């Protein structure tokens, strides 16, 4: 009921009269992008960021543009808004027809009227995209007052409606708040509300949920799709996440090195990909909807440098179907009907059944069951509490980042630790490594008591326990060469007899992680993201550890590079017998690499089980919600399954809810859950879960399961 009212209000609000013209030819596409070129002038030369892309979009449709970083997808979006950074971004070439009007030919003053009124844009990072010193109310009322000439009272009333429309509760109070007082999800809702303010016809969303947690991402995307359908708004979503594309998009364009390589409807593209790059992308993501395969397929190599793009097919260097013909540039041509376009000389053959040979070595991954190996690391009732004082006079703030976590890792085993931001998974890793002091609990590594270790015994375990960090840019010292970075631990721990022995060891480590020996002379900024992460891995390996904490090692990497790094980690484990604590938020990646998985929420482990048990029969309501929220790259699957969106926000760890910490968001919680702290119970063969409702809900799910 509420929703219907909201729509009515939106439709009633002042609409510029010139819309009448657009309404007459509703069959015409709202947006036509025709041979768009964007170039940037850099000190090194001219970068052709976007090299001739074309697409069209009708009202109420959702178009997704997918591609990896640097493929030009964001530049193409900013070009529509004419918001490319000047003077480096030259005026784009080509045509962008919006309601029949070429945006590239409009004077700036006319273009300003269109921005925010007819075309709105939502950006990736909701924190930095909102002005920190201006109130929420002012920022949301700005477009209303500028474009629609509303007075203060009308704009205020409309702002309240908009906040309610995007599901922000307590709207009146929110208007007086500032962005830093809102959670990440709420900030993105606010961005959407700002975008909707003047009833736009087109919304461009540039990676709208990349900075958000899985459950919050699902909330935001559901909201955007819902609004698009109800208000007949066309949506362009720019993303690197194929799951999002499959769940939400009608049309998809795949970009590679500044060009569209494949364009089709979502169903077509996922069912019958025709470009080797699309096929490779789809195969290189670990998937929750398929049985876990052996090894991930990888797309070897790196995208070309757009300063000097190759003359022929831009993907040829990485393509397994390359022919001499590929030295000439292919055109984007229809394959299987006019709607499906691909830029590949061999697309026809692929349509006829040719499949690209896989690049993975044929040896299937033998999963050594580490179930019998001895326990290497045992963590028992670990607590880590941070106490901070915001000012010298302020009350101390207590954040219980980890409260009572227990698990063990065997030799050669990977334990996955998943959870959303703020759940304490990173703190667990840091506490085990003694990078953060523990408050209480016990950590046993081999025969050593880690938390009590000092001096020589601490040095000894430091050698055995290593870490790979999330961000390979900020975790490598920019003033040191790759060789110095990898060689430093050799020096500190006197692992090499001489300088030349150290150099030999560095080049051995480099080749071990798939880098060339000459890269030892380079500095981190001269490497790509995937190469930097390989350096981080080589540095960890230099100590010959038996256990590595991998803290989100692939989340900063592009899909195709991510697969390369995961495969490397798997190989190293098999060859060196390493044990990993693999910390991540991506459920599919964790499933792929882990033997066992623990799910964390607000400092507690809520469920822990063998990989297959956890993903096939999740017990805890939070695990179920996480799995439901993660979109899978298959529109057929996505459209069949109902989306269960977990409502609410993740509570602050400084004020965790009483009883079961999950009760504020739990779909099956009752009054009892507010008081009783659930303990981890065994539900058969080591499948642990912490939920007092479980015996009931377990019985229920068994009843409802189809025969």
């Amino acid at each position, binding site marked *: 009921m509420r929703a219907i009212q909201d729509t009515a209000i939106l439709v009633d609000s002042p609409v510029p009269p010139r819309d009448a013209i657009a309404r007459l030819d509703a069959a015409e596409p709202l947006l036509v992008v025709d041979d768009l070129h964007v170039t940037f002038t850099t000190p090194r030369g001219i970068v052709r960021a976007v090299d001739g892309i074309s697409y069209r979009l009708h009202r109420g449709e959702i178009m997704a543009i997918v591609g990896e970083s640097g493929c030009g997808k964001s530049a193409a979006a900013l070009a529509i808004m004419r918001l490319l950074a000047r003077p480096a971004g030259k005026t784009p070439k080509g045509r962008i027809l919006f309601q029949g009007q070429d945006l590239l030919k409009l004077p700036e003053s006319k273009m300003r009227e269109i*921005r925010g*009124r007819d075309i709105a844009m939502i*950006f990736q990072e909701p924190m930095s*995209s*909102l*002005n*920190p010193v*201006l109130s929420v109310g002012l920022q949301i009322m*700005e477009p209303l007052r*500028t474009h629609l000439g509303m007075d203060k009272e009308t704009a205020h009333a409309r702002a309240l409606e908009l906040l309610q429309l995007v599901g922000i509760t307590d709207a009146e109070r929110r208007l007086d708040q500032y962005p830093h007082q809102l959670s990440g999800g709420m900030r993105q809702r606010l961005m959407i509300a700002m975008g909707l303010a003047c009833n736009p016809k087109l919304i461009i969303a540039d990676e709208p949920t990349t900075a958000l947690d899985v459950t919050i991402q699902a909330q935001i995307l559901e909201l955007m799709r819902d609004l698009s359908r109800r208000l007949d708004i066309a949506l362009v979503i720019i993303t690197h996440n194929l799951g999002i594309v499959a769940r939400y998009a009608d049309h998809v364009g795949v970009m590679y090195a500044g060009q569209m390589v494949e364009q089709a409807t979502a169903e077509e593209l996922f069912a019958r990909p025709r470009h080797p790059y699309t096929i490779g992308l789809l195969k290189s993501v670990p998937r929750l909807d398929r049985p876990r395969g052996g090894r991930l397929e990888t797309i070897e190599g790196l995208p070309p440098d757009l300063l000097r793009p190759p003359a022929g097919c831009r993907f040829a260097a990485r393509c397994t179907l390359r022919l001499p013909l590929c030295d000439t540039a292919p055109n984007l041509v229809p394959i299987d009907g006019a709607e499906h376009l691909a830029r590949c000389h061999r697309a026809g053959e692929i349509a006829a059944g040719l499949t690209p040979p896989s690049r993975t070595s044929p040896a299937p991954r033998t999963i050594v069951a580490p179930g019998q190996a001895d326990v290497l690391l045992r963590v028992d009732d670990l607590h880590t509490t941070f106490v901070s004082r915001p000012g010298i006079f302020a009350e101390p703030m207590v954040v219980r980042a980890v409260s009572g976590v227990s698990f063990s890792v065997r030799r050669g085993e990977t334990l996955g630790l998943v959870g959303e931001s703020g759940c304490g998974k990173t703190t667990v890793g840091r506490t085990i490594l003694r990078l953060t002091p523990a408050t209480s609990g016990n950590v046993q590594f081999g025969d050593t008591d880690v938390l009590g270790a000092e001096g020589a015994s601490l040095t000894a375990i430091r050698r055995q326990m290593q870490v790979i960090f999330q961000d390979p840019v900020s975790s490598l010292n920019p003033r040191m060469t790759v060789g110095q970075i990898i060689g430093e631990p050799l020096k500190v721990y006197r692992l090499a007899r001489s300088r030349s022995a150290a150099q030999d060891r560095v080049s051995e480590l480099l080749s071990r992680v798939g880098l060339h020996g000459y890269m030892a002379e380079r500095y981190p900024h001269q490497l790509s993201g995937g190469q930097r992460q390989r350096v981080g891995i080589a540095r960890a390996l230099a100590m010959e550890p038996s256990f590595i904490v991998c803290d989100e090692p692939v989340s900063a990497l592009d899909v195709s590079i991510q697969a390369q790094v995961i495969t490397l980690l798997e190989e190293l484990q098999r060859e060196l017998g390493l044990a990993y604590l693999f910390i991540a938020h991506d459920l599919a990646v964790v499933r792929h690499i882990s033997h066992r998985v623990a799910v964390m929420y607000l400092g507690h482990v809520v469920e822990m089980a063998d990989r297959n048990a956890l993903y096939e029969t999740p017990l805890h309501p939070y695990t179920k919600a996480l799995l439901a929220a993660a979109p899978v790259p298959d529109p057929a699957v996505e459209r069949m399954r109902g989306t269960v969106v977990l409502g609410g926000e993740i509570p602050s760890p400084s004020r965790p809810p009483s009883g079961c910490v999950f009760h504020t968001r739990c779909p099956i919680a009752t009054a009892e859950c507010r008081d009783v702290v659930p303990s981890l119970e065994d539900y058969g063969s080591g499948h642990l879960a912490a939920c007092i409702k479980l015996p009931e809900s377990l019985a229920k799910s068994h009843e409802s399961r189809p025969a």
Partner: protein
Amino acid sequence: MIGYLIKRILLIIPTLLAVGVVTFFLLRVVPGDIVELKLRGDGAAVTQLAIERERARLGLDKPLINQFGDWITGVAVFNFGTSMWTGRPVTDEIAGRLVLSLQIAFLATLIGLLIAVPLGTISALFANSWIDYSIRVVTLAGLSMPSFWLGMLIIIALLHVFDWIPPMTPTSLWRDPLGQLAQLFWPALAVGYRFSAIVARMMRSSLVEVLHEDYIRTARAKGLFERTVIIRHALRNALLPAITVSGLEFAFLIGGLVVTEQVFNLNGIGRLFVQAIINHDYIMIQALIMLTAFVFVVTNLVVDLVYAFLDPRIRYV
């Protein structure tokens, strides 16, 4: 907020106490003796007895710790003592000069900001164009040129071009406001130019940075007028670092203008400072240092309050 303010004001006491201790004992370490300087200054022959008597009169014969006790208890009730040189209460000596120095400081700050904010903004908006480069030359000149030398240039220029010299005789703001302004404007301009150079360069760099922020792109994506984007969204964020610098500069202007005061024949705090140091007038030096420290502490507090007003992320509790 009120509670925070009270706490901050109370914190001034230990800060000044620390300054007092350090100043008092450091001054006693410095070689030289005010009594000898005073009585034998002109090469006159004085008896040891006369010197002893003068020392006793000034209280210099007591143990150091007692001298400190006497002085600091006096300070606690705002009795800063009498000048060892002239015998007049130091507060009387300082008061008139402080009024003058404050007038110059405020006027220079005003002039400085009036030049700096537009200059820094224009420089940032046209970053790396010829406009930017010209402004940067102007501000670089302001940084490199000593204020007193610019003061001399101003006087010479006024004399040559207009055949006029600004009044050099002390008046009072209340009796002759225009005359006072005519006198103080030129030194304030000389000092304010340097002030504006520092703040304008800070403005430029912080605004250039802010203009690359995501929220500026958002503001443009909303279709706001460019002037709204600049004034409302960018300037308010860019002003913060400029305010810190302005606060420090303002505090420096009280007591830091030794030579400029000389050039314009002004009897301000700076000149008093130099005289007191030459004369080894301990009591006067201590009072002046306490005053300077107080000005710095208060300016800092004001800067913090302005910060809290401009940036909602900063909330003092």
